[in-house]
């Protein structure tokens, strides 16, 4: 299949390895990956912080950039969630019926990575090899907006060599929440402390998730406390081979 990559501004700038891994993985599975270079940002930060006018401009741009793409993959649960869940609200607030139609059509064409693999490409064993002890944090957008369920876990279970350990209280928010992390840093840190505690209880070497935003927050805390545990995006685990 021809799959278009929505890399997200966050991954593009701070976590390019995740994008590279996504490309390598999909090509290994025999698919063609394209990258519309006009893409910039989906507008999530602006929308969630209350700047919906600015977000609307970014929504329109996104719709235009991806207008001709049939299948769009995104290695970020929160950005995929933004497109599917919040874009209709942005169009509604802007009072723009045409935009509303466009985003409705777009929603069904955007897939978070685990959704793409399991639902669209119908694969759970992607031929990966990753001999490490790993625990998985589901992230709020994947869990509650996209409702990906256990797709990421099914993909991870099929990885050869992996020692997958269940995370306690996994459904609890890690405390990132975008600008929440800097507007309410004390509460964010208190929530992070409990997430770190649960990660460390698994004795995992790696904590993974479908969102680098959460991983940057969790990983930042794990590093500050010199815990010897690191964070790796789901795509990078699935792309790893012998």
């Amino acid at each position, binding site marked *: 299949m021809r799959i278009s990559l929505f*890399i997200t*501004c966050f991954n*593009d*700038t*701070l*976590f*390019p*390895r995740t*994008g*590279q891994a996504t*490309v*390598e993985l999909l090509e290994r599975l025999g698919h063609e990956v394209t*990258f519309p*270079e*006009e893409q*910039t*940002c989906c*507008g999530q*930060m*602006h929308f*969630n*912080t*209350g*700047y919906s006018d*600015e977000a609307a*401009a*970014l929504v329109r741009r996104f719709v235009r950039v991806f207008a001709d793409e049939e299948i769009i993959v995104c290695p970020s649960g929160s950005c995929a969630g933004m497109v599917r869940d*919040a874009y209709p*609200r942005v169009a509604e*607030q802007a009072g723009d019926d045409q935009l509303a139609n466009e985003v409705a059509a777009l929603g069904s064409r955007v897939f978070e990575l685990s959704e793409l693999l399991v639902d669209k490409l119908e694969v759970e064993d992607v031929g990966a090899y990753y001999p490490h002890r790993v625990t998985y944090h589901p992230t*709020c957008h994947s*869990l*509650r*907006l996209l409702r990906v369920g256990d797709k990421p876990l099914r993909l991870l279970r099929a990885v050869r060599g992996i020692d997958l350990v269940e995370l306690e209280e996994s459904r609890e*928010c890690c*405390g*990132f*929440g*975008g*600008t*929440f*992390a*800097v*507007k*309410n*840093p*004390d*509460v*964010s*840190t*208190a*929530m*992070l402390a409990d997430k770190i505690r649960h990660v460390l209880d698994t004795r995992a070497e790696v904590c993974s998730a479908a969102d680098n935003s959460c991983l*940057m*927050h969790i*990983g*930042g*805390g794990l*590093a*500050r406390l010199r815990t010897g545990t690191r964070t790796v995006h789901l795509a990078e685990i699935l792309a790893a081979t012998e």
Partner: protein
Amino acid sequence: MSRTERLGFPAAAREALADTQLRRNIGKATQTIRAKRAAVVEELDDWEELREAGRAIKERTLRHLPAYLEQLEASVTAAGGRVHWARDGAEANAIVAGIAEAHDSREIIKVKSLASDEIKFNEAMAARGISAWETDLAELIIQLGDDEQSHILVPAIHRNRAEIRELFQRTLAAEGEQVTDEPAALAELARKHLRRKFLSVPVGVSGANFCVAETGTICVVESEGNGRMCTTLPRVLVTIAGIEKVLPTWGDLEVFLALLPRSSTGERMNPYTSLWSGVTEGDGPEEFHLVLLDNGRSDVLADDFARQTLNCIRCSACLNVCPVYERTGGHAYESVYPGPIGAILTPQLVGLDEAGTLPYASSLCGACYEVCPVKIDIPSVLVHLRGKVVAKKREKRLDPEVAALKTAAFAFSTRGRYERAQKLSRGQKVLGRGRGSVPPPLSAWTGARDLPEVPTQTFREWWRGRANGHGGG
């Protein structure tokens, strides 16, 4: 403990986070109730259908609120009650005080009512020389200790038994009587004290969980029995109800009495639910008054997206699943209504100038929306209210946040600008430090977390390199 000036949520939360007893107690309480709620909801296979019916009935009611309030007034009046209209708390308090004075009563017994707390009822009565006695055990504890509630359902959860023992010893115990800290013994002391009041005070005041327009029925949901006492024994009963408490029909109660107990205390049904319409000869109060309270609710109604806030049936399920509330408790919200529902209701009732930090007191995790029995989309309403806060910021000239977000939007507006901004972020090596040497607001991040290094190559640079045959990254 009351403050006259708000600290704002970030500062108030910071203080609360350091209160270790509060955190232990609230953590234990919310975890316990969460588990109970999950168990009784699991039992039902029509929970989602009930939620949808609850949401829809509320939508129907709110869209036609004037007609339903008129119907309620007519039904209550036909049943022998009297209806009063209060635009704000001061009017509501004046009405109730007037009723007490007309009956020469310097005392009132009351059932827990968030609406009465909202309008500072007890203080208003005190100012007119009327003592309003709380009769819920937790409210009694708060009242005797001159304290403030920290949870909608278990308001004294921040107090432990030793503190309560000391309080009761000081305020309730008879001369020479020694009070132990056994919960049963503490409850017994409260029971004796309050029974004297129940048998003597002629005026009772309650809130309302629901008011049925079709029949003029008021419904009060409780556990201890003090609600039954206050609504049955006094000669005169006054109910203060927010105008959003109305339901269309008697039959609609079946949905809400199925949703509320499981959502609030995690029980199939709470111990006592009282339903009455006006006055009944030979049974209960001889005089009944219903005070319909606006106090900002019409403002909430006017926002057609945020209007769903008024669906709330005050179950507190959202408080019990909120990771923010679990760590800060209720006082940090500086409002009668804390937690997720408080973060959207309070700013709409008291205004954004007063409570503009509350819409940001959330990581938007969505756990509240999942459990709300009337499907209030709290995360979306939070974002909507953030938009209103931002609209006010835009009115100011040179607000730094507005400038920063506009700059970012500009950077994202074309490929060229975006790619230049990417190079700039790498060039400055601002993020490359990872220690505390960054300016605010980034310093809020590095206070507790390391920052990653900004990679030397962006994804799109790698992609282009690949296309030009320069091998993988």
